């Protein structure tokens, strides 16, 4: 929003103060100022000049030779403006003067010398109008500087609208002026208004608020015999500086009022709108707004109607049919208050966010509607004294906000601020901002003004903000808290995540990536991965992104595909979140997962698969001192390899899986490469209790290793053989390691080393033989034979 300091000056006298510095204070105490514009700074020697004669240019059809009276002398000027003519008074830049930042020197135009320039409003920087020269009133004193004639010089600043969202009172100059008054310690002048009680004898307007839910207040007044059509120059300049556009007097006045008080107003042509109903319709219908667009209005949108016919979208925009036109001489003035949320939603549905709707959605003060009419009439009658009010003020006030009174004591302020702000200053600040503030002992009693009471200030803490922001946060003495420090342990989840990342990056040289929480269907399709069903987003940007991922695989595999050019052998991982469907409570079963994917053009699939198993095993050992179990399992996703998918578990609890890829999917990534992929549930993993290390005295006695070469039947795995030595005392059988594995004539053989040792003595071969025999016997029962 653009704010004119000239306009602010109407309400608070800031003379003698450094305005730039004051605007900086405004940023720190009220709302962010994004930019400051010094208007009219780039004009010099621009005066009211009279065209005393005009002749045709000898060399041009369009151009004319003018003699312009600049007050001090007559200037020869070449001018091409279509409305240039003898006798009119126009803004005139003397030779050597400046307009729009450009110096006007003597120039030869089409062979004739020109010693100055007549200007349009756009060249003066006071409007966008460049259709011709600006024509000044006949009684304008010749030679008078334009910046003295009109309020062209101004300091205009732009406030970030976002920083005003919670301040409905700051959407007009008067509210901003109140802030400046408080910041500068100067008085805020009351708004000059017309006393509307004078019209009480007149007939009321028929105003019928049917929808008492969405319309809080509707105030109206009828006026006729408005003869003036064009707004005064200074008013038009302010409108232009504040981002608006002059149209005609009545439209300009409603805009001016909105910019001044923050109260949106609407002027209906009285000939077309004589009475008012405020209601919603039962069914959607087409309606043309005054921007000429036909729109579909639905049954949730509040409408202003006249005789049952819709004439405006409440709080957003009027209709084209009842628009004020240049020949309108009578009007029905609307000054109303609507439900902010409803206006915002309607504006969103219509795709039509206007200056009015932007203000209504901030929850405006309904107390403002009547003073706004009084102010409108004051401005109108000042400009057009013949205008005649023809109705009484008709005011349907449906919903009052409750008055808010807040009591608090000084200790509360001290505790919240941590500094000492004296009582007088508190009272002074609150009163300057329009609060009623009294003190009794250490208690303050504060009455919140209506313009802050719609939602903005409701509790004691809100008052703290008022006191401290005007005090200035950069004036605070800052100090550390005196509260004691309590030692905090890292949560197991955080610890496990970080440990896992370190292992994966530092030991296994993997690269951490981040992806999205949804499946990317397009990428899945490229990989030949069939879509899976899961809970969906109802408003995804694209249907390709609406299914929440059930597992980490597909996103990582698509990253492998996209990174093929990165290297011949690399791996990636992500700790991210997935949703494993809905629970019985209807909520998502969200889990934190570690996903790993390895890619290699230099190593075999088997090597990768075993490396991945090794990675998981290491994680279990190093992070949790836990021995994870692996066993072949059926794939749970169609893209996993039917034979080489393994379940990972600990103590019977499922932790995840690892797999190679189904050839169909592998082929899409890279036929010649090997890929392996795994997922570990980090929530479950982190919850595994980490056993303390149990220290064992190193045995003083040498151990004995027994190697067994075993011939395995079809389908037998090491994991399936393990029960064969589970009975042996673990303090004696200290380890089983793989020495060799090979395949001969389709049969698998393993050589395993069984390490025995004792804390008490040197074990002899004879002593361990019975255990070995037991193992061999149990293996034989499983069909595992000793090789020759």
């Amino acid at each position: 929003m653009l704010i004119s300091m000239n306009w602010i000056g109407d309400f608070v006298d800031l003379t003698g103060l450094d305005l730039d510095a004051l605007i900086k204070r405004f940023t720190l105490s009220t709302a962010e100022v994004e930019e400051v514009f010094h208007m009219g700074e780039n004009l010099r020697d621009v005066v009211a000049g009279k065209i005393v004669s005009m002749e045709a240019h000898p060399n041009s059809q369009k151009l004319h030779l003018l003699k312009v009276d600049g007050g001090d002398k007559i200037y020869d000027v070449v001018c091409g403006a279509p409305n240039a003519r003898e006798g009119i008074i126009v803004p005139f830049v003397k030779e050597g003067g400046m307009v729009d930042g450009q110096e006007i020197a003597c120039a030869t135009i089409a062979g004739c010398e020109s010693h100055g320039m007549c200007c349009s409003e756009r060249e003066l920087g006071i409007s966008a109008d460049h259709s011709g020269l600006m024509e000044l009133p006949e009684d304008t004193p010749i030679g008078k500087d334009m910046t003295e004639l009109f309020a062209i010089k101004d300091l205009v600043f732009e406030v970030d609208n976002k920083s005003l969202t919670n301040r409905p009172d700051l959407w007009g100059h008067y509210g901003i002026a109140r802030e400046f008054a408080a910041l500068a310690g100067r008085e805020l002048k009351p708004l000059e208004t017309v006393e509307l009680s004078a019209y009480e004898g007149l007939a009321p307007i028929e105003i019928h608020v049917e929808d008492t839910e969405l319309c809080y207040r509707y105030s109206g007044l009828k006026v006729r015999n408005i003869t003036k059509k064009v707004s005064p120059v200074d008013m038009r300049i302010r409108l232009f500086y504040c981002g608006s556009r002059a149209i005609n007097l009545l439209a300009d006045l409603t805009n001016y009022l909105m910019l001044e008080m923050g109260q949106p107003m609407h002027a209906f042509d009285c000939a077309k709108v004589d009475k008012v109903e405020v209601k919603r319709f039962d069914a959607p219908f087409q309606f043309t707004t005054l921007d000429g667009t036909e729109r579909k209005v639905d049954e949730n949108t509040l409408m202003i109607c006249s005789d049952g016919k819709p004439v405006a979208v409440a709080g957003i925009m009027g209709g084209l049919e009842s628009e004020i036109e240049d020949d309108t001489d009578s009007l029905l003035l609307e000054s109303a208050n609507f439900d902010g949320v409803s206006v915002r939603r309607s504006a969103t549905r219509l795709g039509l966010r206007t200056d009015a709707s932007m203000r209504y959605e901030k929850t405006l003060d309904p107390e403002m509607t009547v003073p706004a009419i009084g102010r409108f009439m004051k401005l109108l009658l000042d400009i057009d004294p013949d205008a005649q009010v023809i109705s009484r003020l008709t005011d349907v006030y449906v919903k009052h906000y409750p008055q808010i009174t807040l009591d608090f004591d000084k200790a509360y302020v001290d505790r919240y601020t941590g500094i000492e702000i004296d009582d007088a200053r508190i009272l002074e600040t609150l009163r300057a901002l329009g609060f009623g503030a009294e003190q009794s002992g250490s208690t303050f009693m504060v009455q919140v003004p209506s313009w802050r009471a719609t939602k903005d200030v409701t509790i004691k803490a809100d008052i703290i903000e008022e006191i401290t922001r005007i005090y200035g946060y950069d004036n605070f003495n800052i100090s550390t808290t005196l509260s004691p420090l309590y030692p905090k342990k890292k949560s197991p989840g955080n610890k496990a995540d970080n440990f896992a990342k370190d292992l994966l990056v530092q030991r296994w040289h993997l690269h951490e990536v981040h992806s999205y929480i949804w499946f990317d269907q397009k990428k899945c399709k490229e990989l030949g991965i069939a879509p899976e069903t899961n809970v969906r987003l109802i408003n995804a940007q694209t249907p390709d992104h609406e299914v929440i991922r059930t597992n980490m695989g597909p996103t990582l595999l698509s990253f492998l595909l996209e990174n093929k050019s990165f290297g011949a052998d690399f791996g990636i991982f992500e700790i991210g979140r997935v949703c494993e469907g809905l629970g019985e409570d209807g909520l998502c079963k969200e889990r934190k997962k570690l996903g790993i994917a390895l890619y290699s053009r230099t190593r075999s699939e088997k090597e990768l698969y075993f490396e991945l198993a090794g990675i998981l095993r290491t994680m279990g050992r190093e992070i949790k001192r836990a021995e994870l179990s692996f066993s072949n399992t059926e794939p749970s996703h169609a893209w996993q390899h039917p034979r080489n998918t393994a379940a990972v578990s600990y103590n019977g609890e499922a932790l995840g899986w690892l797999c190679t890829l189904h050839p169909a999917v592998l082929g899409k990534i890279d036929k010649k490469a090997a890929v392996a992929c795994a997922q570990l549930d980090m929530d479950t993993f982190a919850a595994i209790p980490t056993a303390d290390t149990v220290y064992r005295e190193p045995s003083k006695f040498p151990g004995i290793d027994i190697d067994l070469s075993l011939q395995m039947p079809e389908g037998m795995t090491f994991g399936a053989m393990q029960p064969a030595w589970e009975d042996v005392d673990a303090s004696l059988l200290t380890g089983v390691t793989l020495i060799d594995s090979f395949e001969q004539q389709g049969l698998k053989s393993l050589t395993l080393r069984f390490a025995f040792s004792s804390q008490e003595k040197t074990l002899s071969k004879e002593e361990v033989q019975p255990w070995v025999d037991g193992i061999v016997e149990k293996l034989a029962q499983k069909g595992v034979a000793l090789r020759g």
Partner: protein
Amino acid sequence: MKEKIEALARQFQHELSGAGTSEAVEKLRVAYLGKKGSVTALLKGLKEVSAEQKKEAGQHINQLKKQVEEKLSQQVDAIRAAEEQRQVEAAEQYDVSLPMDAPEGSYHPITVVQRQLEEIFASMGFTIEDYKEIVTDYECFEAVNIPKDHPARDMQDTYYLENGQLLKTHTSAAQNAIMRKYGAPLRAVFPGRCFRNEALDASHENTFFQMEGMMIDKDISISNLIYFMKTMLSEVFERDINVRLRPGFFPFVEPGFELDISCTICGGEGCSTCKGSGWIELCPCGMIHPNVLRAGGIDPEEYTGFAFGLGLTRLVMMKYGVKDIRDLNSGNLKALSQFTHE
């Protein structure tokens, strides 16, 4: 006897100079000091020496024996040293400047910066909390004082799921649960991934990271908040940072602030990064709204606290000069593999 000894010594010296290998030296050792060696024979011959000469002769022989032992051992050492020297000279000199493969993994830059922040907060007594990404309307909005009809809840900003849950739009969604978990007093930070339903471009992502923090205790004040933010941010940026607070509106704090820091590029002089103002808008913060404390089971009459939200993704972009936010979720290893250590 004396002559005999001297002659033997001369002979040994002669033979030693000819013994160039360790085997030859060993032979010599046997020949002189072995059971049948010449020195041993001299010692045996002492029996026949007269009693008065015996002592002196014995001394001479032992001297010789010692001399022989020493010289033999010196010779062995010399031979070994010469052999080692030959090995050294024959050895290949490796070219360490060859481009060798040194595999390196990498952390996501978010992890790097997140860890730096976590370390700072841990040192200040903060617990570090992890939280869900799919949350309820209550957690994300209701519990942090965002009323039913607030614009933040509109469909254009928030991803809603068909079961009524949503993807958390801010880390504040964890505030309630953490307050309930620990109660007051409380110091916690909670990094997390957040989601906003918007179109992607170089500076907008629908998926990004924040790190939020809270400190709650008796008598926590605005003065403490400013002090803490200044101290913490000076640690984060590893230099003395000036902060400035402006009023800012966030439903979960009251008063709420926009915190600016002195420009890290120009130090406050004014440059293109800070648009000449000398300040960069960094993070929202404020005193926790009494309604939020109450919803978290903490009595706002007894306790006060402050909260702040750091844009983790934004800090990463500032720190490393990442211009396109989309790089971070791209999985592109040419971009991401550069962050090889913390």
